[in-house]
């Protein structure tokens, strides 16, 4: 009924989900065997004192939560400790202050490392997402409009194949092709470019972005084509399209004024749900093309077992996806007049 209430409720749920992720992120890294700090201090060359110094540095001397000194293996501890002195609260406090710990590998604050990379990922996802949505929607519209023609079958066939492609494999193939074409295949810019004028720098970045963006676009375009097509087919068989025709509107007017908005609605939801998958794609694309973003940060952190970076990157990605979902959800509420609470 009440739109404000719907917005408040959705926002509250997103907030709850973020809290859930934050808690999950903490315990995941403490319950599972590959404990973040322990992995770093397992080095047999370290003596007891050195280990203690490291333990204090990473806050591992404190109990995880009240009653538990450790969760893997489970070690019951004192329940009467000040809750503010537990690892969990220190983690939460640091998080609120924007601290995500220190990278084992780079020995720099994780926040700094991820901060540099976040924008590169947003750039890649942003451009790729816009291109794939525009192209996918356009192909979807054509496929639905020209239903039962070879145009539709071709569009659907290509989309299904694109959907089935493993992202990293397509990235590898394009990398192969790009290298024979003389395109830059790694990184975000040619070294030493920063001395050149801004316009040339941007041109260089655009060249580097070409292959990663192309991969991204091909992978997600197929899905958008399929969704747009099926959604538009549903809309075009509705009675109000017949009304629009009876009103004397021509095909272009009907598509533009009566069909597209209605058909776009499911697409908005899918774009939101897709953001989670999108992240999966970005990890692969960035790893193959060494694009310095969050995805390759995850890849490198996995290879180096750099758990603070992995933990931070996961948190950042999860929160971004949750917020983007909320945004899409609210857009939907705004677009569709029929949406009511629940």
């Amino acid at each position, binding site marked *: 009924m009440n739109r404000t209430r719907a917005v408040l409720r959705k926002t509250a749920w997103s907030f709850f989900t973020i809290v859930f992720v934050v808690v999950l992120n903490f315990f995941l890294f403490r319950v599972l065997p590959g404990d973040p700090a322990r992995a770093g201090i397992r080095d047999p060359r370290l003596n007891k004192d050195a280990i203690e110094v490291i333990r204090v540095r990473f806050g591992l001397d404190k109990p995880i939560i009240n009653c538990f000194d450790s969760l893997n293996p489970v070690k019951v501890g004192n329940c009467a400790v000040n809750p503010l002195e537990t690892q969990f609260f220190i983690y939460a406090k640091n998080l609120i202050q924007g601290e995500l710990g220190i990278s084992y590998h780079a020995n720099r604050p994780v926040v700094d490392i991820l901060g540099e990379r976040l924008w590169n990922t947003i750039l890649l996802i942003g451009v790729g997402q816009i291109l794939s949505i525009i192209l996918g929607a356009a192909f979807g519209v054509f496929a639905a409009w020209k239903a*039962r023609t070879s145009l539709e079958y071709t569009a659907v066939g290509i989309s299904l194949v694109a959907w089935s492609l493993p992202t*990293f494999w397509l990235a590898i193939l394009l990398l192969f092709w790009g290298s024979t074409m003389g395109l830059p295949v790694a990184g975000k810019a040619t070294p030493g470019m920063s001395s050149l004028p801004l316009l040339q720098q941007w041109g260089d970045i655009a060249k580097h972005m070409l292959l990663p963006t192309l991969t991204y676009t091909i992978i997600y375009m197929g899905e958008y084509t399929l969704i747009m097509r099926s959604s538009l087919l549903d809309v075009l068989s509705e009675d109000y399209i017949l009304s629009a*025709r009876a009103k004397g509107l021509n095909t272009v007017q009907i598509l533009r004024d009566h069909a597209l908005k209605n058909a776009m609605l499911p697409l908005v939801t899918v774009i939101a749900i897709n953001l989670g998958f999108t992240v999966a794609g970005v990890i692969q694309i960035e790893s193959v093309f060494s694009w310095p973003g969050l995805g390759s940060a995850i890849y490198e952190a996995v290879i180096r077992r750099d758990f603070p970076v992995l*933990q931070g990157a996961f948190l950042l990605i999860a929160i971004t996806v949750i917020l983007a979902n909320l945004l899409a959800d609210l857009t939907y509420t705004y677009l569709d007049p029929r949406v009511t609470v629940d």
Partner: protein
Amino acid sequence: MQTTLQSSTTFSRPESGFTVFWRAFRKSRTGLVGLIMLAIAIFVALFAPAIAPYENAAATSVGIADIYQPPSAAHILGTDDAGQDVFTNFIFGARVSLTVGFFAAFISIFIGGIFGLVAGFFGGRWETFLMRLTDVMLVIPDLPLTVVIVALTKPSLMNIIFVIGILGWTTTARVVRSQTLAVKSRKFVLRARAIGAGRLHILTRHVLPLVMPILVVQAVLAISLAILNESTLSFIGLGDPTAPSWGQMLNFAFGRGAMSVGAWWALVVPGFGIVWVVLSLTLLGQGLEQVLNPRLDTHHLMPGRPKVGTEAQAAHPARDIILDVRNISIHYINEGKPPARAVENVSLSLREGDLLGLVGESGCGKTTLMLSLLNLLPAAGQVVNGNVYYKGRDLTAMNEDEINNIRWSRISIIFQGAMNALNPVRTVGDQIAEAILKHNPAFPKNKVPERVAELLDLVGIASAHSDHFPHQYSGGMRQRAMIAMALACNPDVVIADEPTTALDVMIQAQILELLDELRKKLGLSVIFVTHDLGVVAELCDRVLVMYGGVTAEYAGVDTIYNEPKHPYTQELLKAFPDLTKPKKKLSSIPGYPPRLDDLPAGCRFAPRCPAVFDRCQMEEPGLHVLKNDHHVGCHLAEGSK
């Protein structure tokens, strides 16, 4: 046909869901191709040792010379970074990928299925809790979480299967819940409950069989996602080193210089395997989906079939005849089947200011006939004969642009069931304004709201409702708004296609009164399509009675009521209560209207006709013209005056 299908599934439990399912699935070419591709992949995985030229992981002495050898007779797909045969590893890789896919999907479907069934069937707190959990899990990105968990644990095949499986249940839970909710309210489940069947019994015997097909579709999708996820994990170095999957092969080749030595075979082949399996599952899923949610083949923007048959005849209608339909025949063309002869040789003339009633049972071709007047037939419909003259111009000969100028500005339609005839995401006022501006581009923009308000006022809707959306209107208001929209461009002719069918009796009366009043006020000529003879008697000047796509009888309203000549009209009148003879028994006509693609050889009414005789079975009756412009399509009327 669709209604009978639906009702049969509603009232009785289907015999075997899967027999029905398979019969429908066989028709989907996409699904069959997918199934065959998947079968090949499974076959390869099962008989890998027999197919592969070398024994698996036969780490034969690796010399520098063996590494990245291009395809040759000994190694038809070349060798990899360890000098192993790519083809052999490719064949064995199928085992790993499919194992992960099937087992992980099984876990996902199991969890998701149980959550969905419990939430949908038991409802209450369980439902709230499970669905909230699903919502939360749904927005947490899968793969990064999988990566984190696998990175923290041992990357063994078991772990990978388990993690992918446990994180993949959310979509299934959602879909299964909504299907369970739908099944739960079906009649046979309610009946089983009423006779006291236990909940578990209902769940396993009645609900589960109907949720099963959805689970199968979900499983197919889950397998493909699991395979893709496993390959991604392997590619970023989190695969099980003892189980070389396709993703693992790619990881090794990519990480160990296949790119720099140009060993494309080591990169292309494993990827091809993944694409093959995932594509097969996607196609299979599409096929299954088509069976579960069959979609109409056509939509309203598909190009119609060009008219065939008679070219424009000399048009010389009487001056006061505004719409003249002559001998029109319409067929629905189904590839590979005989056409459905929906309308055959029907003529009618609408005089200026008249109200013509078009009466007949559902499916007798009334709506088809009306749609053909404005060239609005669905894609399968084709005018195979006849012409439609509006003020002497042949509408059937016009192209789309020409007819667009006639539509709504000269002839408009009030559709039945206005809920669906109005666009749900645009305000009512906006939709009326659209019609005005389309046909009068010069209409001053600032005067449009005024005109919309005026039109709404005409049908008794306060102009404040102009900004509302159709779903905010009641059924009667929507029908009124539809009428206002039909009048927006001051048309000469209004076709009202069963405008009151979906409304309750009081509202029906109001709408009819309104229509009649507007007709008189605005001097409209109206064709009124209905199956309600009472309405016809009250309002109409002339009446066309259709049966099975042909004219049964066509005459002035008094003639139809007082001297009906066609047995069908006579039967219809008997089925209609006469207030002057309250004691008279009402009768209904036994039998059903004919199927338009399987018509009887002679008269279409013969199987139900009380006055049937031999000739009716053999020969289609012609249209006989009696006095007072009285047309009767019956052998009995032959020769009478």
